[in-house]
């Protein structure tokens, strides 16, 4: 049993997920982690699958050819042999945080905030952006789940991320994820 990653992108049409997952099922592949979303009319699929012995990246890509042709999808499959075990890439000394950024749209919001995050030893776990607002007054909204170093180093990192966002005149909330164990 090996693990593969698969990406597919094309103009959104009904049936894409059913067709792709159907090919996977026919080959005995198990869909593990996935993100599938509509990006302004284009459907993006990003999957990690476990595949039976003999189902290589090339074999899966070939098997997906008819679906790719039918739906006009750009499909890529690659082996994931050196991947870490399933789960979020959270180091034992890191802590989960959530960041929300919103403000007038301008170039560099993602780069500035994520650069400050990386410089502070943080790591992006999940990131989502929305471009909303009126014509002529676009608003950019970005939400991230990240990890930051534990303890006061995390607070220092959070402060640097807020400062970086403030330099772009966008609002930024950074807070530790508080989990209540019941």
């Amino acid at each position, binding site marked *: 049993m090996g693990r593969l990653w698969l990406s597919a992108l094309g103009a959104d049409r009904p049936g894409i997920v059913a067709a792709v997952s159907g090919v996977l099922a026919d080959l005995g592949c198990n869909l593990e982690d996935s993100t599938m979303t*509509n990006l*302004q*009319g284009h459907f993006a699929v990003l999957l990690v699958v476990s595949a039976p012995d003999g189902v290589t990246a090339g074999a899966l890509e070939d098997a997906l050819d008819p679906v790719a042709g039918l739906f006009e999808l750009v499909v890529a499959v690659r082996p994931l042999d050196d991947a870490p075990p399933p789960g979020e890439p959270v180091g034992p000394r890191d802590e989960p945080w*959530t960041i*929300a950024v*919103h*403000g*007038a749209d301008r170039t560099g919001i993602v780069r500035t905030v994520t650069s400050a995050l990386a410089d502070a030893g943080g790591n992006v776990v*999940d*990131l*989502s952006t*929305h*471009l*909303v*607002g*009126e014509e002529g007054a676009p*608003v950019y*909204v970005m*939400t*991230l*789940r990240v990890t930051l170093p534990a303890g006061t180093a995390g607070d220092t990192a959070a402060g640097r991320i807020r400062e970086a966002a403030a330099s772009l005149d*966008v*609002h930024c*909330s950074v807070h530790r*994820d508080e989990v209540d164990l019941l």
Partner: protein
Amino acid sequence: MSVRAVLTLPHPVLMATAAPVGDIDADALALAGDLVDTMRASPACVGLAAPQIGVARRAFVVDVTGHAKAVSCHGTFVLFDPVVVSAHDPAAAREGCMSVPDLTGEVARATRLTVTGLGIDGDRRTLSVDAFEARAVLHEIDHLDGLVFLDRVAGPHAVFARKTYR
């Protein structure tokens, strides 16, 4: 009293901490009237905070009358300089905001709440609210601290577009 325009992101008033109202004078009463009129002008609106109509003062109106999720219901009430006395039993639910018209978000908020502030008669009012009315009150108080629901969501997958495409 009049219906005022509701500001939307990224207006700076929505991101600023509002100043205390203090004495309930003619200006404060005019603000209360505008909040009520503006809230009622939008049928789905159950609350409005002063910064949303461009006034950086600590005041809001809430009215959850007839809402399916409401348990406690104090009708239409305006509170000036509100303070949360106690908050218990958080629960997550999807909420929207007239100042963030294109998105909704999943936010955890207390479902039992005691809040105190000054009413339009200048007397102190202390209210026990719960369920949807508690959510509305906390949402409006957040506006007085320069926060919108986006600042409270649990992560990227807790934000939802209201329309599919631009």
